[in-house]
């Protein structure tokens, strides 16, 4: 695929030929993606979650070795507890925050894995949830709040502290919501929000 698109660009640079064929591959690629068979093992895990929680969880994607689950902030604690106790995921690999100013929301993504269950050694379960986003944030004192998963997965402790600092999401129930990485006198916006622009850009 790459060799086809590369050839005209290399040969015919001055004639500006590569522009017209460019929009063509987009719809073609989308149409091809639909009839893909879902991997059975991963489908089984996501089915268990849907069976237990019904409409409360939304399956984002089921790919080989990866499952994506989305849930609301009211249910995230229950879902996480079910994932730990019944699905045997035992630790969190990372906690990431993603800012979505267009939706006025901040997404927090937990990547969960398992050391003890050998059948899950390859698997990563992506649990995501969203908090409302404030235009003028006061970290810790506005509506950008989520329940903490620290009591379910101990390993999220530093990850949640980092998300609180970098995106201003306060985690209710976290025992230690303090600054971790930034300078002590940081008084600007949380730096990983999209409205924080780096210098010269």
């Amino acid at each position, binding site marked *: 695929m790459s060799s086809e698109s590369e050839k005209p660009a290399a040969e015919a640079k001055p004639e500006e030929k590569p522009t017209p064929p460019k929009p063509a591959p987009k719809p073609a690629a989308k149409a091809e993606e639909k009839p893909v068979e879902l991997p059975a093992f991963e489908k089984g895990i996501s089915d268990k979650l849907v069976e237990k929680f019904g409409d409360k969880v939304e399956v984002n994607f089921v790919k080989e070795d990866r499952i994506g689950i989305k849930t609301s902030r009211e249910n995230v604690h229950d879902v996480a507890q079910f994932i730990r106790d019944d699905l045997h995921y035992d630790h969190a690999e990372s906690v990431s925050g993603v800012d979505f100013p267009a939706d006025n929301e901040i997404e927090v993504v937990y990547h969960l894995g398992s050391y003890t269950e050998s059948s899950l050694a390859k698997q990563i379960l992506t649990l995501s949830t969203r908090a409302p986003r404030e235009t003028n944030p006061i970290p810790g004192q506005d509506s950008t709040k989520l329940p903490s998963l620290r009591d379910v997965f101990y390993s999220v402790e530093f990850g949640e502290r980092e998300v609180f600092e970098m995106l201003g999401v306060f985690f209710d129930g976290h*025992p230690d919501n303090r600054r971790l990485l930034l300078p002590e006198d940081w008084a600007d916006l949380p730096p990983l929000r999209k409205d924080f622009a780096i210098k010269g850009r």
Partner: protein
Amino acid sequence: MTDIMPPGLALKKVDERIMTLNVGPQHPGSGHMRIVVQIDGDYIVACDPDPGYVHRGEEKMAEYRNYITNVPHLERPVIHDSCNVLYPYVLGAEEILGIEVPERAKYVRVICSELNRCIYTMYWLAIYGIFLGHSTMFMWPAGDRELLIDLMEKVSGARVTHAHFIPGGVRNDLPANFEDVCLRQVNYFEKRIKEYAAVFYDNPILISRTRDTGVLSRENAIRYGVTGSVLRASGVDYDLRVKAPYDVYDELDIHTNVMKEGDSYARSRIPWLDMIESCNIIRQALQKMPKSGSVRAKLKPNPKTKGPATVYKRVESGRGSLGCYIVSDGKPEPYRVKMSVPSFRNLLALPNLLIGEKLGNMPSVYWSLNYWPVEADR
């Protein structure tokens, strides 16, 4: 004693017997990281690690550059392990851009990755040696790693920051006659590091300073989600190269080193055993590698993405599992890049290992975590 108070709460205790001590940054005991400890006499009663000191905003910078131009600066957090720290990002970018990697490039990547693992581990071993007052163990690894640095210099042209892995393969093919030189150097290197056992790992002084200090039980290792040598020293058999192989690791025969003690000695010995295993992997890869063929898929300077997608890829580095979470909104630049790094994850175990230890054992426990300060601080 298993369920210890979180570090922040522990520090609020007030007692006139207890003294608060800032170890670092830029202290022989901590490197460029600050560890706030409270000591009662000679014993540590509370510990609060403060990794933030050189924060450079790697993740934010990645949102302003496209998938190719992100390569040279995303390897900066760990310059001695620059191939591995870039690896998950490259794997993720390949999935987002929809690129197929040539077979030979996968083997070249495995060889470079294992060479870098040894280069990093030798540097770490040198630091570990000097902080325990073992000057020989500072000079030997610092000298012997030059062998492998020379090899990487032949491959990429740079001694530390290679920027060699790119989405679609590797930047350059191996130089002529590389296989022979590499085999010779690696064989000598392996013979050389096996001598370290007599001078360092069997040394009674090292054993007395590391045995039964900072013990991390198997349950706690899983609970804290630690990774890499720290996890395997606590008896958990988990190595991504075996359990979730990427590129061509599933075609190689890899032995996972596991120890049950969970103390500083086991944590410091596992990386050394891993280096010997790395030599085996390099020899296997050199043998199985296709002798000719492309090492790079054709790629435009500003390649197009296949549309909105999220990717999470992980690899096993010298310190543990490195993950990269990339969110793409279909634009040439990534929407968000999050690096999940082993140093940051292993740090969670530090307060719980140090509490109850003598202050004098702090360097041996702290450095046995295979911690690279700049990586945690990104």
